[in-house]
């Protein structure tokens, strides 16, 4: 693991505290400044005990993106989490939840009665995803296209997509094809970028996971123009965190699906979808990690170009899902408090688009409105257009 930079640069402006979504809803949460740079100073002096509630941090990194002097606040908090002692029961659960790639191999496990998870500290009130694994036959089919002479774009198949949202992968592949590319799903077996482990403070595990996935991805990048991602957290992890914290690089550009489409599609593509009658009202939700990694507004800009009705922004900060965060019993209250705002800010029902599967199930549960990846919406519109033609 690489050493941190600027870990002691804090100028105590507290802008991180103003950006932290958990600090606003959780009355005991000490906040990014106290848990990160303040604590780390004591820790380096050898005198720090872990603080209570450190694990309530969602690792959304909004604090880091607010900080004017680049203090790696959330990453210092991850070190803090690593030191916080936890009951063996929760340690088992966290170990399982930080290996979503295993769950992605046997997604039907989530169909077991929820009560079974309660002794482990798994929330029984947070909605679990429905399994929708990638079928072998589908995998096979996508692979066969690789021989053609078109431009090839990799799609990083994250654990969630692999186990629970193969529809999004198929939709994204179809949209890329429509734009004239061949989509290559990678890696071939179930792997995780390591973000889940890092978020829980299992830093060694995060690095091991990342290294193995890096090997599997790198092998498949030759001849690719770029790799697009379907999940904002994986996107930020692959492009920014891997090189910064583990020294792992991918030789081709890594881009979120939405940015790729916005950048590469020609006006004809947008116009074809734009003209379709009878579209529902669209709300866009930029996930925390996409704000941190790339900024806000590209999903909204894409929807402005393709949606017949003007899209609206779901005006919330963090929805509270935060990967596996909402699935842990002790976080259910905070996760729901954050997510509830979504319902409050929606004037009328509509469809919510967001590039994270866990945010999607959380938002769908709390708002009652269908929430899907933008690729699926685009693909749906393309299919409608074919029928209408």
């Amino acid at each position, binding site marked *: 693991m690489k050493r941190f930079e600027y870990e002691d640069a804090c100028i105590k402006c507290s*802008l991180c505290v*103003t*950006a932290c979504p958990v600090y606003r809803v959780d*009355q005991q949460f000490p906040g990014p400044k106290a848990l990160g740079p303040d604590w780390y100073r004591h820790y380096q002096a050898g005198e720090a005990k872990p603080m209570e509630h450190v694990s309530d941090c969602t690792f959304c990194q909004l604090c880091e993106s607010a900080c004017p002097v680049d203090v790696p606040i959330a990453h210092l908090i991850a070190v803090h989490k690593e030191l916080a002692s936890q009951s063996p029961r929760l340690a088992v659960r966290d170990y399982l939840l930080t290996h979503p790639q295993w769950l992605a191999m046997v997604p039907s496990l989530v169909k077991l009665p929820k009560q079974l998870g309660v002794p482990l500290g798994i929330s029984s009130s947070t909605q679990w995803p429905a399994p929708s694994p990638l079928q072998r036959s589908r995998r096979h089919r996508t692979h066969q296209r690789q021989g053609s002479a078109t431009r090839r774009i990799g799609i990083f198949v994250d654990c969630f997509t692999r186990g629970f949202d193969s529809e999004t992968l198929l939709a994204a592949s179809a949209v890329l094809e429509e734009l004239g590319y061949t989509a290559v799903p990678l890696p071939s077996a179930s792997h995780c970028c390591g973000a889940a482990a890092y978020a829980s403070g299992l830093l060694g595990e995060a690095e091991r996971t990342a290294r193995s996935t890096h090997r599997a991805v790198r092998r498949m990048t030759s001849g690719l123009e770029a790799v697009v991602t379907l999940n904002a957290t994986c996107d930020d992890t692959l492009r920014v965190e891997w090189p910064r914290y583990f020294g792992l690089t991918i030789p081709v*550009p890594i881009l979120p699906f939405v940015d790729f489409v916005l950048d590469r599609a020609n006006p004809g593509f947008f116009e074809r979808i734009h003209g379709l009658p009878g579209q529902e009202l669209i709300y866009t939700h930029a996930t925390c990690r996409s704000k941190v990694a790339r900024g*806000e*507004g590209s999903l909204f800009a894409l929807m402005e170009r393709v949606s017949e009705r003007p899209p609206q922004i779901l005006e919330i900060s963090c929805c509270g899902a935060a990967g596996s965060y909402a699935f842990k019993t002790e976080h259910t209250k905070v996760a729901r408090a954050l997510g509830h705002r979504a319902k409050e800010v929606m004037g009328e029902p509509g469809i919510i688009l967001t590039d994270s599967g866990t945010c999607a199930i959380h938002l769908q549960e709390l708002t009652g409105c269908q929430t899907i990846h933008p690729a699926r919406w685009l693909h749906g519109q393309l299919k409608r257009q074919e029928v209408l033609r």
Partner: protein
Amino acid sequence: MSSKTAIVVGRGPAGMLSTSYLLQRGYQVTVLAESDGSLGMWPGDFSFGRTTDAFQAFPIELSSAEWSQAFGELVALYRSFGVTLVLPQAQDIPHTVTAIGNMRPTFATPNWQYASSEPESLVFVGIDGLADSIVGAQAATYRRRSGCEAYEVSLSRPPGWDSSWGTIRFAAYLDGDAGASWLAATLREALRGVPSGIPVVLPQVIGLEHTEKLLTQLSEVGKRSVSEFPLLSPSIGGVRVRDRWERLLRQQGVRFVSGRVREVQPVPRALLTDGRSFEADCLLLASGGVLGGGMQVTVDGAIVDELVNREVGRMDHLDALDAHGHREIDCLGGGRVLAVGRAMGGWNPNRDHNGGAMLLATVRTALGMCEEVDR
């Protein structure tokens, strides 16, 4: 869809103001910023120097008609995202009070913040458990400075308080029903015995979203004016302004890109350290503020890092911006790339208390130049 495009670097007050005014002029705007701006460290009032006196020298002079037009536009802009800015009635410069009891000049002031042209007797309210709330010292200083009476009352810690409660936590608590009723009840109790009619000033933590409603209710029930005095960073007034302003800009289709600018080319084009590049018809550099490190463009076109008095580039082409350190990214002027806010040389708002005038004058001038180049 608009044909003109603009890039704004920085999302502090100068960047936000530029963005809003560019939108009004039909530009499509992309904001590039690597961190939050200084809005959350600034109470959100616009200052205009110590006096309105005609001899006050600003690096950019506007006529009094232009000033009043500029402030009028500002008030309308703030209204569009839900903040009421109050302008002084008379020619005098009003003052607000600080956490340590000083009288600081202000000019256009959000209606939640205390401002007055004349010194007057005040009731200072402290809240136990809130850092920077030092009502005894505050009242003593105010008495000395203003020559007026200063009453002091203290509210006890709210239920559930612990040492992790900063200003944001207090504000979020008071936004909720439990917090609002706690405040109403304890304040009523504390003000018993204080002569009626004397205005009350509270630390600036009275909610983030429901501030105006809370203060109006407290004023009506207590039959006296109730407003806030600003605290140090993070400044809740600025956070309110920031959150509401950004919400409006997002809805107006502004893209907020996270990333560090490494190089600005005269095209104009901005290159980010992560390899992305952005081009537009004009580019405004609003990154020289409190957090940007205070770089200046001198009259001969050199860009100088004021802190170490070192020339770091020329106005015609800036590169290796990141090598100067992320606190020092700055500025070039002329043509389609212009500097606004503190990035524009010659202003020293810390000394002159004219930060508001600086923002309005520099943004206004830069926009005028953009339009000229377009023609």
